């Protein structure tokens, strides 16, 4: 009996290690990815775009709410989308290592036509000296990753990668200026009506290797 218990213990221990090992190996680069910050569930997240002065995004942060549980997912960000309005969410700003590639996975629920998801690459806006992590208003968008579209009122696992494995010289010209990145999810207000989308279980990891520049790519 003792032998049996020991073997069972070893087997269980092995299973736990197998399950935990990949998680430990891939550290999540996204700050407050599970909306669990004690200060503010959305600490660091890009929700307030009032600074941009764009009337289509004014009050964006007022459309966001935190749900401790929603249709089987815990810690969920819920974004309401008024008709004709462009609701958007950006992950907290992450530093970008030149040439490195990143993958973002998360779960998305959308009861509206379409949600576009993509990585954004940023440089500092003119007049902002380098320093610690800047604010969204200090950044200038200079690179956009390949966008993925999602729709359908059920949870879907999304994956976006940034940048592509092989990029053109034109892309490289921009990419080398990228110092920060985020992942943005937005609903094009010009195209769709009112609804909501939810996100949960956000994870950003760095992929092995660097992107390659294609000499023959169009300029």
């Amino acid at each position, binding site marked *: 009996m003792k032998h049996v218990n020991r073997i069972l213990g070893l087997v269980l221990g092995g299973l736990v290690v197998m399950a935990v090992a990949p998680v430990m190996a891939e550290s999540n680069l996204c700050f407050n990815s599970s909306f669990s910050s004690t200060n503010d569930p959305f600490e660091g997240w890009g929700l307030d775009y009032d600074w941009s002065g764009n009337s289509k995004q004014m009050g964006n942060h007022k459309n966001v709410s935190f749900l401790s549980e929603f249709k089987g997912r815990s810690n969920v960000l819920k974004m309401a989308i008024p008709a004709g309005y462009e609701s958007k969410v950006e992950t907290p700003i992450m530093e970008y290592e030149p040439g490195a590639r990143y993958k973002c996975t998360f779960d998305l629920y959308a009861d509206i036509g379409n949600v576009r998801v993509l990585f954004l690459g940023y440089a500092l806006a003119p007049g902002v000296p*380098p*320093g610690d992590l800047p604010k969204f208003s200090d950044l200038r968008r200079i690179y956009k990753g390949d966008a993925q579209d999602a729709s359908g009122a059920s949870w879907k696992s999304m994956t976006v990668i940034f940048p592509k494995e092989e990029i053109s010289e034109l892309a490289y010209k921009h990419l080398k200026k990228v110092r920060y990145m985020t992942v943005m999810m937005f609903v094009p207000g010009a195209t769709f009506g009112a609804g909501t989308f939810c996100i949960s279980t956000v994870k950003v990891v760095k992929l092995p290797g*660097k992107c390659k520049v294609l000499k023959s790519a169009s300029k």
Partner: protein
Amino acid sequence: MAPVTLIGQLVKVGRMLNRWSAEVRFTVGMSVILFILESMAATDIMLPFQRGGRVVAWGLLVILVGVLVERLFRVLSRRPSPELVAVSVEQTFPQLDNHLINFLLFSASGRKDSFTTAYLNMDIPHWNELDFRAMKNLRTLRRAQIALGVAIALTLIPYPLVGQAWPVAMGRIINPFSNVAPVSLTHILSTTPGNATALQGGNVSASCQVKGKAGHEVWLDVRPADGTAKTYNLGALKGHGVEGFSNTFFKVTTAMQYRFRAGDSFSPDWYAITLRPPLAFTAISVKVVPPSYMLIPPRQYDAQAAAIDVPVGSVVSLEVKCNAPVNGVVLSGFGPPVALSRKGDDKVWEGSVIVTNGSGFVLSATAANGDPAETTLGYNLMPDRSPTLTIKYPKQSVVLLPGGAPSIDFAVSDDFGLDEITIEQVLDTEDKTAPATVLKTYKWVTSKTREYTALWKGDIRKTSDTGNLTLRVVAKDNRPGVKNVALSSSLVFTLDEASVAAKKMEEAAKKTLDDLNRVIELQRENIAQTKQLQGILNTSAPDQWMEAGARQETIRGIVKQVMEKGGGRSLGNLLGMVRKLYASEMAEVIPALQGVPGVKEAAQKVKQVGRALSMEEKILRQLTFAEEAAKQALYDSKNNSLVGILDGIMGQQDKIIKATGLCMTQGIAVAASVTADQDSLGSEVSAFIKACLAAAEAGQGEDKDNAAFLVSIAQGCEKEKIGGDMLLAAEQLEKNVPVAAMPHEQNAYAKLLAIRKKFDEATAQVDKEKESEMVEALKEASAKLAKLKDMEEKLKDAMDKVEENKDKNSKKTDKLEEEADEIQKNIKEALQQVPKDLDIFAHLNVGNDLVEDVFSTFEEVTQAAGSENESGGGPVKEKAVAKREYLAKDMEKAKGLLDDFEMWLGKKPDATKVTVEAADKKEMPEGVALTPLQTEMNDIIGDLLKQDKEEAKKADDGAINAAVPDLEMGGEVMEGDTTTFSAKGKSGNKEPDHKEQDGRSNVGRQGMANGESAAASGTIGKGDDNIEARRTQDPTQSGQVTADGEADTKATGGGKLGSGKGDGWGDGGGTTRMDSAEKGSGAQSLAMMTKRADTTYAQASMKGMRSDSLKNAAHHLRQAEDAVSKGAPIGEIAEWKRKAMAELKKAKIELGERSAASLDGRNSTSMVNDIVEASPDEAPAKYRGLVSEYYKKLNESL
């Protein structure tokens, strides 16, 4: 026996039989009636009948009696038939053996035969022996009599048993209309209120008086009209005499019935409570007639539906309608109550009042039945407010140097019109009641001006003027009688001597420097403290972090004071930067520091401390720049006071020259005042020389070069004998010989101008030195960037090697990766160093910050599989669009810049050929209205999608001329079929269609566009290389766009022209240039004004003067130019000019204020409440420009 006799006898017998039958029927009938009566009475005792039940029972009895009587009557009135009687007799008496029947039949047949005759002649045997009483049905009769006897007995028997209740019950049944109640132990003596009418929504109390047996319960049954019945138990009787029970119904809103029940008492009838609606005002109409001077038309209101605006003094007429007749309506709430008068019936009332105060009417009415009604009608009393007076300049006390003139920029508005505005000088005496001297009066007699702005300028200050010049602005409105008056605060112009003024200014600047030194020291201390705490993060006490936060608060407080004093002018051109710092980092670092102890996770805590420290370092860095800027501002402005005096003298001399010229040309006598002015101006020159020497002496210790310069200026003035020229001119003027005076005057002016140039040259020399320093720094930055470029190449090689060796040798790969990381780290550090190097020049004055902000975003796109050719993407579709006539009118309207949505690049190449029906040339307006451009331009570019050349050609759209000022951009980037003038287009990832297209472009891809490029810089991407040279209709500007590598741009006029690095310059336009610059044309004058505004702005910037208004003025003038060239409506052009004029006026004040070297007032401060509105664009322009240069260098180098 004769038949007749027999028949007579039979009839008698028949009647006797009828009587017997009636007797039986009567007896039976009475029995039944009595039984029913008794049954009913018994029932009434057990379950007392209501009146209805009693009536029914009574009715039944009456019917039975009626039936009985009818039957008796019929029986008694029935004529007996001899035959029938004979039959009955034969049946009773069989011994007759049918002889009786036969006798009757034969006698009736009339036959005369012998047999019949013989039979009739025979006697009827036994006839005379018959006893007809035997025919009486005694058996039935006896039975009926027995039943009757029982019934009668039953009528009597209950009495001993139930007593009085039996006859009462019998009586209640026999007479259902009597009010005799059933006999019970408990009696309800009275019920209130009985049947009643109550106020709807009011309370109703129902009560009853009951007397009866102890223990019997009392109930209240309620039957609402709109609900189910309900019974309330009100309690039990105690048996002590009469007892009362009651129940109250609150807020009764529906009619109802009720009754009380008590013990065995007879249930009384239901009582009804009916409701009456409360008295209410069904309609209130109000007519407001404002006083005539307000020029507001009368207005009618439905007072119960709309808010009422009542200008003060208005006559308000009311008409009130009630839902019931009322005794009277009283209006109160605005003053003494006023009774309204009846109009028609008692339901409609009316009245008028004049309203001068209050906020609402109270209408009270009392109905004929006593119900009251009251309602309040709120109104917005629109008072005739005092005029609103805004002093834009001076905001604080101003030092007015000799040669300067006091000026007041003010705006007055009044809700109903202005009557008079005066500029008054308040005498500087102890007597506060001393009348003020009116210097200027603006009076309106007939017109009703509600808004007025003016820039008043007084007489030039003379050197001999000292003390304070205290002015005020008084505005009165057009209210009849006592006018509303607005009085400005005292506007003090200090008439200090130049040397005193300079000293004050220096002291103020030094105070600022001291403050800045203090905050810098404090910031350094706090950084050291924060670093110390960072080292002992786990053991640090919360108080220590609170202390660090408190110190930051102190720093922020001091910075606020520095910004408030003199509007922060002492910070020079870094005011904007410090404002931003104050609003963001300085505010954010405080909670960041104080919140450190509250962070639970260690990693987060470390990060927060790092962030706080970073902010503190940024604050320190920028405060250091600010200190430098303050020093620079102090240095730059050291001679401002002297220049101000000199400008004043020159201005005066210019006026005298003009006056003299007028006398010469028109042959009029020279006015004595001109001579006096010329004479006193000589004294002003002497004062200026003294001021120069005094300033030189004061600055001897700190800036010997400047002191020497000032001495040289003073000596130059004396040497040139400027004062002498003026005296000579004055003498000639006095002799009334203007021709002789003019050369002396002009000589004096020329010499003054030369001295003024010397001041400018001295400033320019200093700026030149600074510029060369900056150029050196930029060169260094370029060198560093060149090195970085090499490092980047190495990094790329290293990355490639890593990739190549990835699967071969892991150790080697690791090593290469380490190398790459190291290079990466070095690049990062070097990159961070370059802007830091450039940051040190943040305080420099940069003249030209007109560079537009253009940047591009690259977007990755995965092309849809097979979309590059027909097989995958499908055949090219054609789309025809009808002429858009509605655009013609929209073209002329610019609603302002529209905000856009997110845009992205498509995954499929263009596969649609769009052909738009062109608008007729006659329908087209002369130009499209222009919106203001964005402050920055964001281009989106991606790798060109692959597409079959033939397909691409097929998909080329047709030429278009439909245009709009702006579009709400959003969605996929693609070539549209409408031209816009907002310059929001994106380069995208598709080749442009081979067609003509104008409008305003961003940067874009090479193509055939011939419009105006609004991008001041940027790169043209590769697109359609099949382009042709063409002439443009509107060659406005080309911008500084450059071709990108293989991109051809050829000569296409504006638009895609790559000037400088492009393949060629654009050709001129058609025969008539719309932007004609011919001398004397409106466009030419606008262009000149723009140029002059730009130049002045650059000069002002070089001299350390911040005048954004001038910059804005130039921008608006440029917009006006555009509007003219595009043939925009005159209203739009006028609007731009009006805006430009407003900005120029502000600029004049700003520059004049600076030139006059205004100082902080003793009590005046300008709050920093506009900080929150400060946009990122408010960052110091030169700082932004420098860093932009850095990024441009970076782009060029990498």
